[in-house]
């Protein structure tokens, strides 16, 4: 457990760094192939991510939910579970926190309650695949993906403005929004305060997210619960032999994963958007997979990779504005990053690296669809 050994840290970082580098390179190749100017694009990207205090603040803002969804996917990975459902958990967390945030004026500890509501929604959305996996053998991958669709439809319904044929509006719809499907603004008492206000718009959520990451690191590597979780992920039979309740750990891990993703939703809403509309349900859940793998499923690594992917995201708008390259190229680059970190063999082959001597903890998900 030489977490802080420099040599080991170096070994751990080589593949992710080269993966990002290679993805940027291939991305440039693609842009060049389709008639875009990669240099201008990357210059814009850099400007947009780090070129000014405002750019930095955007990066930090984009990084915040990625830390949490990355942690959500990571902790599930540790227990040998693939949580593709972070985006659904995020959405349910958002809706629950908004529901508390727009109501209950004058409630004491309003912000805390709204955050907890978000966590609770996520926990519930993680509990479903957990229970189904444990009691019916349904693979969490399919269940969480389906729950993502259910979550966005459910969220869309809660803020639905109603229809011309007499359809009733959703319970969270803002009556003052006319035909627009969205909630009212979160009450001031339930908002996360700014660390740097306008125009930087950096809120306390980022520190909360970093705190959760540190707590998660401690949980995974320093507690008996973490030991049990890692054992379940590394060898579930040995875990049973060791007296670990594998079913409980499976359910609990998915609940924690859901809760963290739900917290991401709550923080985004209570700190930044201050309301919910269906179009806010972006791809942060899927990005969480990339963040987790790039961070080698280590919570500290997740902080680094979330920063990096947050920067990519932050710079993309400026990139499109400056160079005319569609911001969607960032998604391609992220997919490439994911491919390269998930298959270190490619990176080792490209850069003629030697294979690390020891067995690293690897997780296998794809052995059948249940049982």
């Amino acid at each position, binding site marked *: 457990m030489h977490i802080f050994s420099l040599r080991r840290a170096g070994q751990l970082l080589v593949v992710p760094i080269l993966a990002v580098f290679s993805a940027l390179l291939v991305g440039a190749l693609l842009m060049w192939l*389709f008639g875009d100017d990669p240099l201008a694009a990357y210059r814009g990207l850099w400007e947009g991510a780090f070129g000014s205090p405002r750019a930095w603040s955007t990066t930090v803002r984009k990084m915040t939910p990625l830390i949490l969804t990355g942690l959500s996917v990571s902790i599930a990975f540790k227990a040998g579970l693939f949580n593709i459902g972070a985006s659904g958990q995020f959405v349910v967390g958002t809706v629950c926190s908004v529901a508390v945030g727009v109501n209950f004026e004058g409630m004491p500890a309003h912000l805390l309650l709204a955050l907890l509501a978000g966590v609770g929604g996520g926990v519930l959305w993680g509990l479903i695949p957990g229970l189904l996996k444990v009691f019916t053998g349904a693979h969490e991958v399919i269940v969480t993906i389906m729950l993502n669709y*259910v979550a966005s439809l459910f969220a869309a319904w809660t803020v639905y403005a109603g229809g011309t044929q007499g359809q009733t509006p959703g319970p969270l719809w803002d009556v003052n929004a006319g035909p627009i499907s969205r909630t009212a603004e979160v009450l001031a008492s339930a908002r996360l305060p700014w660390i740097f206000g306008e125009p930087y718009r950096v809120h306390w959520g980022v520190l909360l997210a970093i705190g959760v990451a540190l707590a998660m690191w401690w949980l995974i590597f320093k507690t008996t619960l973490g030991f049990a979780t890692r054992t379940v992920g590394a060898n579930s039979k040995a875990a049973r032999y060791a007296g670990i309740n594998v079913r409980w750990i499976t359910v609990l891990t998915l609940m924690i994963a859901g809760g963290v993703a739900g917290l991401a939703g709550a923080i985004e809403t209570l700190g930044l958007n201050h309301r919910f509309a269906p179009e806010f349900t972006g791809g942060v859940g899927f990005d969480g997979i990339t963040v987790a793998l790039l961070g080698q499923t280590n919570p500290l690594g997740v902080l680094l990779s979330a920063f990096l992917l947050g920067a990519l995201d932050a710079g993309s708008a400026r990139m499109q504005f400056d160079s005319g390259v569609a911001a969607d190229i960032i998604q391609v680059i992220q*997919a490439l990053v*994911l491919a390269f970190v998930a298959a270190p063999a490619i990176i080792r082959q490209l850069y003629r690296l030697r294979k690390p001597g020891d067995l690293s903890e690897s997780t296998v998900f794809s*052995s059948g669809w249940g*049982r």
Partner: protein
Amino acid sequence: MGNRLLRGTSLLAMFLAVAAVAMTLLVNTTSLGEHPWLRVFFSVSALNFTLRASVPLILGALCGILCERTGIVNIGIEGMMLAGAFAAFVAKTSTNDWPLLASLLFGVGVSLAVGGAMGLLHALFSIRYRMDQIISGTVLIVLAAGISAYLFDRDAVAEGKFGAIALPGLSQIPVFGEVFFSNPPLTYLALLLVIVVHVALFSSRWGVRTRACGEHPRAADTVGIDVNRFRYVNTMLGGMLAGLAGGFLVLEAVGQFQEGMTAGRGFISLAAMIFGNWMPFGAMAAALLFGYTQALQNELLLAGITTVPRQFVSMIPYVVTIVAVSGFVGRVRPPAAEGKVYETESGSE
């Protein structure tokens, strides 16, 4: 193991199918058809829509069967489908000035090719580079979404799509003629492929070898079968079918491309494959069931039934998928070796 249960399930399915056929005949030929709810459930348009919604699911499930029967888990069907759809769209829009049929067939060809290329990528990732197969599938999904969004020209318009071909004679049969024998070409092709894949899997040399690779690759290896070659080839063939499913969406169903237009069909295909116990006909039955839930959603809107919020109606296919997967995993039996990298003895030298 579970055989009796499976047999029971197929009996039940058969009974339901017969009942549905009977109701369909009654609703569409007698005065029962005046009842709005019955029309929602059994009208010819509901059945037509069911078939149309099922085609991509059938093709996707066949893709899954080809991959998993050789031992490669494929959750990237969604990405393969999306890539196929986008490729078909690009091919169609850039050949709008060709004769319609030529342009459409070109689109089909390109969607097959791109789907096959996605299959090759999945095989490379999971066999050569030993990526976890579920993560490899995820990479395909993100990659397809990213590239199609990046390259999508929102002003491009595909002109024309495949029309229905009424099979002479057969299409005159009341109700059934309309449902089964007046369809566009890719629908017929999908149904035909179910039969082809079934026969090939169980009665051809390729099929018995494929299944051996998925169940016990070492046994296949020791009688001289090149397991990984089979895995490469079948994953590519599967990718082509998923690509065709995408092509179907653009060239036959919708006529245009939208970002993320596969909307989870790849994942539902996967569920259909599991539900159908990795059997082509089983998967087709499951796909038809899922397609039917989508049809209901449509019919409810058409019938103006607004008491149920439409978002909840739209959830039905996804919820049914969860229920199906929960109820049937553990009773069906996946290929024993799926998801595991096969190392030949000599490969580990």
